[in-house]
Protein backbone atom coordinates (compact mmCIF):
# COMPACT_ATOMS: atom_id res chain seq x y z
CA UNK A 1 0.00 0.00 0.00
CA UNK A 2 1.44 3.34 -1.08
CA UNK A 3 0.78 6.52 0.88
CA UNK A 4 2.11 10.08 0.98
CA UNK A 5 4.82 10.73 3.59
CA UNK A 6 2.42 12.87 5.60
CA UNK A 7 -0.36 10.28 5.71
CA UNK A 8 1.51 7.04 6.20
CA UNK A 9 1.12 7.11 9.98
CA UNK A 10 -2.63 7.68 9.78
CA UNK A 11 -2.76 5.01 7.09
CA UNK A 12 -1.22 2.59 9.57
CA UNK A 13 -3.84 3.45 12.20
CA UNK A 14 -6.79 3.31 9.79
CA UNK A 15 -5.69 -0.06 8.49
CA UNK A 16 -5.40 -1.58 11.94
CA UNK A 17 -8.80 -0.27 12.90
CA UNK A 18 -10.37 -1.82 9.82
CA UNK A 19 -8.49 -5.09 10.29
CA UNK A 20 -9.62 -5.30 13.93
CA UNK A 21 -13.22 -4.55 12.96
CA UNK A 22 -13.07 -7.53 10.65
CA UNK A 23 -12.06 -9.79 13.51
CA UNK A 24 -8.40 -10.11 12.67
CA UNK A 25 -5.43 -9.80 14.96
CA UNK A 26 -2.71 -7.56 13.51
CA UNK A 27 0.99 -8.13 13.85
CA UNK A 28 2.70 -4.80 13.26
CA UNK A 29 6.31 -4.94 12.16
CA UNK A 30 7.52 -1.48 13.04
CA UNK A 31 10.77 0.03 11.85
CA UNK A 32 9.79 3.60 12.53
CA UNK A 33 8.08 4.24 15.84
CA UNK A 34 8.53 2.11 18.99
CA UNK A 35 5.67 -0.22 19.87
CA UNK A 36 4.93 1.65 23.11
CA UNK A 37 4.11 4.86 21.26
CA UNK A 38 2.18 3.09 18.55
CA UNK A 39 0.11 1.34 21.23
CA UNK A 40 -0.70 4.73 22.73
CA UNK A 41 -1.68 6.17 19.37
CA UNK A 42 -3.87 3.15 18.60
CA UNK A 43 -5.61 3.39 21.97
CA UNK A 44 -6.37 7.04 21.39
CA UNK A 45 -7.99 6.11 18.12
CA UNK A 46 -10.18 3.51 19.81
CA UNK A 47 -8.24 0.43 18.77
CA UNK A 48 -8.20 -2.43 21.28
CA UNK A 49 -4.50 -3.07 22.15
CA UNK A 50 -5.39 -6.73 22.63
CA UNK A 51 -6.00 -6.95 18.89
CA UNK A 52 -2.44 -5.87 18.04
CA UNK A 53 0.98 -7.32 18.72
CA UNK A 54 4.33 -6.08 17.53
CA UNK A 55 7.67 -6.97 16.11
CA UNK A 56 9.61 -3.89 17.15
CA UNK A 57 12.88 -3.14 15.34
CA UNK A 58 13.22 0.33 16.89
CA UNK A 59 13.31 0.16 20.69
CA UNK A 60 16.27 -2.19 21.18
CA UNK A 61 18.32 -0.22 18.65
CA UNK A 62 17.61 2.90 20.68
CA UNK A 63 17.76 1.85 24.35
CA UNK A 64 20.11 -1.10 24.04
CA UNK A 65 18.09 -3.84 25.66
CA UNK A 66 14.45 -4.78 25.88
CA UNK A 67 12.68 -7.90 27.02
CA UNK A 68 10.06 -9.59 24.88
CA UNK A 69 6.52 -9.56 26.24
CA UNK A 70 4.75 -12.71 25.05
CA UNK A 71 1.65 -11.90 23.07
CA UNK A 72 2.51 -8.19 23.00
CA UNK A 73 5.90 -7.47 21.53
CA UNK A 74 8.96 -9.21 20.23
CA UNK A 75 12.06 -7.07 19.83
CA UNK A 76 14.53 -7.23 16.98
CA UNK A 77 18.03 -5.83 17.48
CA UNK A 78 18.18 -3.64 14.43
CA UNK A 79 16.00 -2.84 11.39
CA UNK A 80 18.69 -4.30 9.13
CA UNK A 81 18.76 -7.63 10.99
CA UNK A 82 16.60 -9.49 8.50
CA UNK A 83 17.52 -12.89 9.85
CA UNK A 84 16.25 -12.03 13.30
CA UNK A 85 13.21 -10.35 11.77
CA UNK A 86 12.45 -13.42 9.68
CA UNK A 87 12.72 -15.64 12.76
CA UNK A 88 10.45 -13.26 14.67
CA UNK A 89 7.81 -13.40 11.93
CA UNK A 90 7.96 -17.20 11.87
CA UNK A 91 7.66 -17.53 15.63
CA UNK A 92 4.91 -14.97 16.07
CA UNK A 93 2.87 -16.66 13.36
CA UNK A 94 3.39 -19.95 15.18
CA UNK A 95 2.20 -18.42 18.46
CA UNK A 96 -0.91 -17.10 16.79
CA UNK A 97 -1.64 -20.15 14.66
CA UNK A 98 -5.33 -20.87 14.51
CA UNK A 99 -6.23 -17.19 14.84
CA UNK A 100 -7.23 -14.86 12.03
CA UNK A 101 -4.05 -12.85 11.57
CA UNK A 102 -2.87 -10.02 9.37
CA UNK A 103 0.69 -8.70 9.18
CA UNK A 104 1.26 -4.99 8.68
CA UNK A 105 4.79 -3.98 7.68
CA UNK A 106 5.59 -0.33 8.45
CA UNK A 107 7.43 0.50 6.26
CA UNK A 108 9.50 -0.55 3.29
CA UNK A 109 10.61 3.05 2.82
CA UNK A 110 12.14 3.20 6.31
CA UNK A 111 13.95 -0.07 5.67
CA UNK A 112 15.71 1.61 2.73
CA UNK A 113 17.64 3.71 5.24
CA UNK A 114 19.38 0.55 6.40
CA UNK A 115 19.23 -1.86 3.52
CA UNK A 116 19.77 -1.92 -0.22
CA UNK A 117 16.77 -2.42 -2.45
CA UNK A 118 18.03 -5.86 -3.48
CA UNK A 119 18.16 -7.05 0.15
CA UNK A 120 14.73 -5.65 0.83
CA UNK A 121 13.36 -7.33 -2.28
CA UNK A 122 14.74 -10.69 -1.14
CA UNK A 123 13.29 -10.25 2.35
CA UNK A 124 9.84 -9.27 1.09
CA UNK A 125 9.92 -12.28 -1.21
CA UNK A 126 10.70 -14.50 1.80
CA UNK A 127 7.93 -12.98 3.91
CA UNK A 128 5.29 -13.14 1.17
CA UNK A 129 6.14 -16.79 0.50
CA UNK A 130 5.79 -17.51 4.21
CA UNK A 131 2.45 -15.71 4.34
CA UNK A 132 1.12 -17.65 1.37
CA UNK A 133 2.18 -20.95 2.93
CA UNK A 134 0.46 -20.07 6.21
CA UNK A 135 -2.51 -18.45 4.46
CA UNK A 136 -1.97 -15.17 6.27
CA UNK A 137 -2.73 -11.73 4.86
CA UNK A 138 0.07 -9.21 4.70
CA UNK A 139 0.14 -5.48 4.00
CA UNK A 140 3.37 -3.62 3.22
CA UNK A 141 3.35 0.15 3.60
CA UNK A 142 5.59 2.36 1.49
CA UNK A 143 5.86 6.03 0.66
CA UNK A 144 4.39 6.64 -2.78
CA UNK A 145 7.00 7.48 -5.43
CA UNK A 146 9.61 6.38 -2.93
CA UNK A 147 10.49 3.10 -4.62
CA UNK A 148 12.50 2.98 -7.80
CA UNK A 149 10.84 1.38 -10.83
CA UNK A 150 12.86 -1.82 -10.61
CA UNK A 151 12.14 -2.40 -6.92
CA UNK A 152 8.50 -1.52 -7.50
CA UNK A 153 8.30 -4.04 -10.34
CA UNK A 154 9.89 -6.75 -8.21
CA UNK A 155 7.62 -6.12 -5.24
CA UNK A 156 4.57 -6.02 -7.49
CA UNK A 157 5.33 -9.57 -8.58
CA UNK A 158 5.42 -10.75 -4.96
CA UNK A 159 2.05 -9.28 -3.88
CA UNK A 160 -1.51 -9.74 -5.04
CA UNK A 161 -2.27 -6.06 -5.51
CA UNK A 162 -0.86 -2.56 -5.07
CA UNK A 163 -3.09 0.10 -3.52
CA UNK A 164 -2.13 3.72 -4.04
CA UNK A 165 -3.91 5.91 -1.48
CA UNK A 166 -2.55 9.14 -2.97
Amino acid sequence: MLATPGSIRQCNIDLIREIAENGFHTIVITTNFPYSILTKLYQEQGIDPGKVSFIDAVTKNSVGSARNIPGVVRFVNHPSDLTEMGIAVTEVLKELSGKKVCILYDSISTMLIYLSSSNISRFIHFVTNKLRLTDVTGIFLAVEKGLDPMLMTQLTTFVDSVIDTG
Partner: protein
Amino acid sequence: MDKKRPLRHATIPHEGKKPKPAETFASWLQPVVDCSPIPQFVIGRDHCIRFWNKALERYSGLSAAEMVGTSRQWQAFYQQERPTLADVLLEGKTEEIAQLYDGRYNRSALIEDAWEATDFFPQVGKKGTWLHFTAALIRDATGEVLGAVETLEDITDLMKAEELIAYMTEMAMRITQPVGIIRENLQDIARLTRDGKLVPEEIAMLLDTQVRNAAQIQANVEEFQKSAVEKHQEIPEAYRKFLSG
Protein backbone atom coordinates in the same frame (compact mmCIF):
# COMPACT_ATOMS: atom_id res chain seq x y z
CA MET B 1 36.76 -22.29 -58.22
CA ASP B 2 33.66 -24.43 -57.82
CA LYS B 3 31.99 -24.67 -61.23
CA LYS B 4 28.70 -25.71 -59.67
CA ARG B 5 28.46 -22.39 -57.87
CA PRO B 6 29.28 -19.66 -60.37
CA LEU B 7 30.40 -16.36 -58.94
CA ARG B 8 27.91 -13.53 -59.06
CA HIS B 9 28.92 -10.51 -61.07
CA ALA B 10 28.39 -7.14 -59.47
CA THR B 11 28.17 -3.93 -61.46
CA ILE B 12 29.51 -0.87 -59.71
CA PRO B 13 28.62 2.57 -61.12
CA HIS B 14 31.54 4.99 -61.00
CA GLU B 15 30.15 8.50 -61.41
CA GLY B 16 28.67 7.90 -64.83
CA LYS B 17 31.54 5.72 -66.01
CA LYS B 18 30.96 2.21 -67.26
CA PRO B 19 31.21 -0.55 -64.58
CA LYS B 20 34.45 -2.50 -64.39
CA PRO B 21 33.72 -5.95 -65.81
CA ALA B 22 36.31 -7.81 -63.77
CA GLU B 23 34.78 -6.94 -60.41
CA THR B 24 33.17 -9.96 -58.79
CA PHE B 25 31.37 -10.74 -55.59
CA ALA B 26 34.48 -12.46 -54.26
CA SER B 27 36.63 -9.39 -54.95
CA TRP B 28 34.19 -7.31 -52.99
CA LEU B 29 34.27 -9.52 -49.96
CA GLN B 30 37.64 -8.54 -48.49
CA PRO B 31 37.04 -4.77 -48.88
CA VAL B 32 33.53 -5.06 -47.44
CA VAL B 33 34.85 -6.82 -44.36
CA ASP B 34 37.91 -4.60 -44.09
CA CYS B 35 36.13 -1.28 -44.57
CA SER B 36 33.48 -2.05 -41.99
CA PRO B 37 33.94 0.18 -38.95
CA ILE B 38 32.61 -2.66 -36.82
CA PRO B 39 35.28 -5.05 -35.56
CA GLN B 40 34.61 -8.49 -36.96
CA PHE B 41 36.23 -11.75 -37.84
CA VAL B 42 35.23 -14.75 -39.88
CA ILE B 43 36.26 -18.34 -39.18
CA GLY B 44 35.92 -21.40 -41.33
CA ARG B 45 34.49 -24.76 -40.36
CA ASP B 46 37.95 -25.68 -39.11
CA HIS B 47 37.74 -22.72 -36.66
CA CYS B 48 40.63 -21.04 -38.46
CA ILE B 49 40.44 -17.33 -39.10
CA ARG B 50 39.60 -16.39 -42.67
CA PHE B 51 39.06 -12.66 -42.21
CA TRP B 52 40.26 -10.33 -39.46
CA ASN B 53 39.19 -6.83 -40.41
CA LYS B 54 41.07 -3.57 -39.93
CA ALA B 55 38.69 -2.37 -37.22
CA LEU B 56 39.44 -5.50 -35.21
CA GLU B 57 43.17 -5.10 -35.84
CA ARG B 58 43.06 -1.62 -34.34
CA TYR B 59 40.78 -2.70 -31.54
CA SER B 60 42.71 -5.77 -30.50
CA GLY B 61 46.23 -4.74 -31.45
CA LEU B 62 46.51 -8.05 -33.29
CA SER B 63 47.19 -7.81 -37.01
CA ALA B 64 45.42 -9.77 -39.69
CA ALA B 65 48.80 -11.00 -40.86
CA GLU B 66 49.45 -12.73 -37.56
CA MET B 67 45.89 -13.95 -37.01
CA VAL B 68 44.58 -15.19 -40.37
CA GLY B 69 45.11 -18.91 -40.73
CA THR B 70 45.27 -19.48 -36.99
CA SER B 71 42.55 -20.39 -34.52
CA ARG B 72 43.68 -17.81 -31.98
CA GLN B 73 40.58 -15.62 -32.21
CA TRP B 74 40.22 -15.95 -28.42
CA GLN B 75 43.42 -13.89 -27.97
CA ALA B 76 41.62 -10.64 -28.75
CA PHE B 77 39.40 -11.11 -25.70
CA TYR B 78 40.79 -13.60 -23.22
CA GLN B 79 44.07 -14.34 -21.53
CA GLN B 80 43.55 -18.07 -21.85
CA GLU B 81 42.25 -20.10 -24.74
CA ARG B 82 38.50 -20.52 -24.74
CA PRO B 83 35.82 -20.69 -27.43
CA THR B 84 34.36 -17.52 -28.86
CA LEU B 85 30.64 -17.29 -29.61
CA ALA B 86 31.43 -18.07 -33.27
CA ASP B 87 33.29 -21.23 -32.20
CA VAL B 88 30.35 -22.36 -30.08
CA LEU B 89 27.91 -21.89 -32.95
CA LEU B 90 30.15 -23.82 -35.32
CA GLU B 91 30.19 -26.73 -32.90
CA GLY B 92 26.43 -26.58 -32.63
CA LYS B 93 26.76 -26.42 -28.82
CA THR B 94 24.34 -23.58 -28.21
CA GLU B 95 23.61 -25.00 -24.77
CA GLU B 96 27.09 -23.80 -23.76
CA ILE B 97 26.15 -20.20 -24.46
CA ALA B 98 24.23 -19.99 -21.17
CA GLN B 99 27.27 -21.19 -19.22
CA LEU B 100 29.69 -18.90 -20.99
CA TYR B 101 27.65 -15.70 -20.88
CA ASP B 102 25.70 -16.02 -17.64
CA GLY B 103 22.25 -14.72 -18.61
CA ARG B 104 23.49 -11.93 -20.85
CA TYR B 105 22.68 -13.56 -24.18
CA ASN B 106 19.81 -14.17 -26.54
CA ARG B 107 19.01 -15.55 -29.95
CA SER B 108 19.00 -12.97 -32.73
CA ALA B 109 15.52 -11.77 -33.65
CA LEU B 110 16.65 -11.08 -37.20
CA ILE B 111 18.79 -13.97 -38.38
CA GLU B 112 18.39 -17.68 -37.88
CA ASP B 113 21.45 -19.42 -36.41
CA ALA B 114 22.61 -16.11 -34.93
CA TRP B 115 23.13 -15.28 -31.29
CA GLU B 116 24.01 -12.16 -29.31
CA ALA B 117 25.76 -11.80 -26.00
CA THR B 118 27.21 -9.14 -23.73
CA ASP B 119 30.15 -9.54 -21.42
CA PHE B 120 32.81 -7.61 -19.57
CA PHE B 121 36.39 -8.16 -20.68
CA PRO B 122 38.79 -7.02 -17.96
CA GLN B 123 41.88 -7.44 -20.12
CA VAL B 124 40.56 -5.39 -23.05
CA GLY B 125 41.41 -1.71 -22.74
CA LYS B 126 42.92 0.05 -19.75
CA LYS B 127 40.15 -0.69 -17.29
CA GLY B 128 38.27 -3.43 -19.06
CA THR B 129 35.58 -3.13 -21.69
CA TRP B 130 31.95 -4.11 -22.08
CA LEU B 131 31.38 -5.72 -25.45
CA HIS B 132 28.16 -6.65 -27.15
CA PHE B 133 28.87 -9.29 -29.79
CA THR B 134 26.87 -11.19 -32.33
CA ALA B 135 27.78 -14.36 -34.13
CA ALA B 136 26.08 -16.09 -37.01
CA LEU B 137 26.68 -19.18 -39.04
CA ILE B 138 27.59 -18.64 -42.70
CA ARG B 139 25.81 -21.02 -45.01
CA ASP B 140 26.04 -21.48 -48.74
CA ALA B 141 23.07 -21.66 -51.11
CA THR B 142 22.54 -25.33 -50.29
CA GLY B 143 22.48 -24.62 -46.55
CA GLU B 144 25.87 -26.13 -45.87
CA VAL B 145 27.79 -24.41 -43.11
CA LEU B 146 30.90 -22.67 -44.38
CA GLY B 147 31.92 -20.96 -41.18
CA ALA B 148 30.84 -18.26 -38.77
CA VAL B 149 31.15 -14.50 -38.50
CA GLU B 150 31.39 -12.56 -35.26
CA THR B 151 31.03 -8.80 -34.83
CA LEU B 152 31.70 -6.69 -31.76
CA GLU B 153 30.43 -3.43 -30.36
CA ASP B 154 32.02 -1.54 -27.50
CA ILE B 155 29.16 -0.64 -25.15
CA THR B 156 31.26 0.47 -22.20
CA ASP B 157 29.81 3.98 -22.30
CA LEU B 158 26.27 2.60 -22.40
CA MET B 159 26.95 0.32 -19.45
CA LYS B 160 28.49 3.24 -17.57
CA ALA B 161 25.35 5.26 -18.24
CA GLU B 162 23.23 2.37 -16.92
CA GLU B 163 25.50 2.09 -13.90
CA LEU B 164 25.10 5.80 -13.32
CA ILE B 165 21.31 5.52 -13.49
CA ALA B 166 21.37 2.60 -11.05
CA TYR B 167 23.68 4.57 -8.75
CA MET B 168 21.58 7.74 -8.81
CA THR B 169 18.39 5.75 -8.28
CA GLU B 170 19.84 4.00 -5.27
CA MET B 171 21.01 7.38 -3.93
CA ALA B 172 17.52 8.80 -4.37
CA MET B 173 15.93 5.87 -2.56
CA ARG B 174 18.45 5.59 0.24
CA ILE B 175 19.05 9.28 0.85
CA THR B 176 16.37 11.58 -0.55
CA GLN B 177 13.43 9.48 0.57
CA PRO B 178 14.80 8.64 4.02
CA VAL B 179 15.50 12.32 4.69
CA GLY B 180 11.84 12.90 3.90
CA ILE B 181 10.87 10.18 6.36
CA ILE B 182 12.97 11.78 9.10
CA ARG B 183 11.33 15.11 8.38
CA GLU B 184 7.85 13.58 8.71
CA ASN B 185 8.84 11.73 11.88
CA LEU B 186 10.17 14.92 13.46
CA GLN B 187 6.98 16.73 12.54
CA ASP B 188 4.96 13.95 14.19
CA ILE B 189 7.16 14.08 17.29
CA ALA B 190 6.73 17.86 17.49
CA ARG B 191 2.94 17.54 17.13
CA LEU B 192 2.66 14.76 19.72
CA THR B 193 4.86 16.75 22.12
CA ARG B 194 2.78 19.90 21.71
CA ASP B 195 -0.38 17.83 22.29
CA GLY B 196 1.17 16.52 25.50
CA LYS B 197 0.93 12.91 24.36
CA LEU B 198 4.51 11.95 25.04
CA VAL B 199 6.54 11.65 28.22
CA PRO B 200 10.18 12.81 28.18
CA GLU B 201 11.56 9.26 27.89
CA GLU B 202 9.42 8.64 24.82
CA ILE B 203 10.46 11.94 23.24
CA ALA B 204 14.09 11.03 23.88
CA MET B 205 13.62 7.55 22.35
CA LEU B 206 11.92 8.94 19.26
CA LEU B 207 14.53 11.64 18.76
CA ASP B 208 17.28 9.13 19.33
CA THR B 209 15.80 6.95 16.58
CA GLN B 210 15.83 9.87 14.15
CA VAL B 211 19.45 10.63 15.09
CA ARG B 212 20.32 7.00 14.28
CA ASN B 213 18.45 7.25 11.00
CA ALA B 214 20.38 10.40 10.12
CA ALA B 215 23.67 8.75 11.06
CA GLN B 216 22.85 5.79 8.83
CA ILE B 217 22.01 8.09 5.92
CA GLN B 218 25.32 9.85 6.41
CA ALA B 219 27.09 6.48 6.39
CA ASN B 220 25.23 5.56 3.19
CA VAL B 221 26.40 8.74 1.47
CA GLU B 222 29.98 8.13 2.56
CA GLU B 223 29.81 4.55 1.31
CA PHE B 224 28.49 5.64 -2.07
CA GLN B 225 31.12 8.32 -2.41
CA LYS B 226 33.91 5.96 -1.45
CA SER B 227 32.71 3.37 -3.93
CA ALA B 228 32.52 5.98 -6.71
CA VAL B 229 36.01 7.26 -5.91
CA GLU B 230 37.45 3.74 -5.98
CA LYS B 231 35.81 3.01 -9.30
CA HIS B 232 36.86 6.21 -11.02
CA GLN B 233 40.59 6.58 -10.85
CA GLU B 234 40.41 9.69 -13.03
CA ILE B 235 39.05 11.78 -10.12
CA PRO B 236 41.77 14.26 -9.07
CA GLU B 237 43.55 13.50 -5.81
CA ALA B 238 42.29 16.57 -3.94
CA TYR B 239 38.71 15.57 -4.67
CA ARG B 240 39.40 11.94 -3.86
CA LYS B 241 40.54 12.92 -0.38
CA PHE B 242 37.55 15.17 0.13
CA LEU B 243 35.02 12.61 -1.07
CA SER B 244 36.62 9.77 0.85
CA GLY B 245 36.36 11.77 4.08
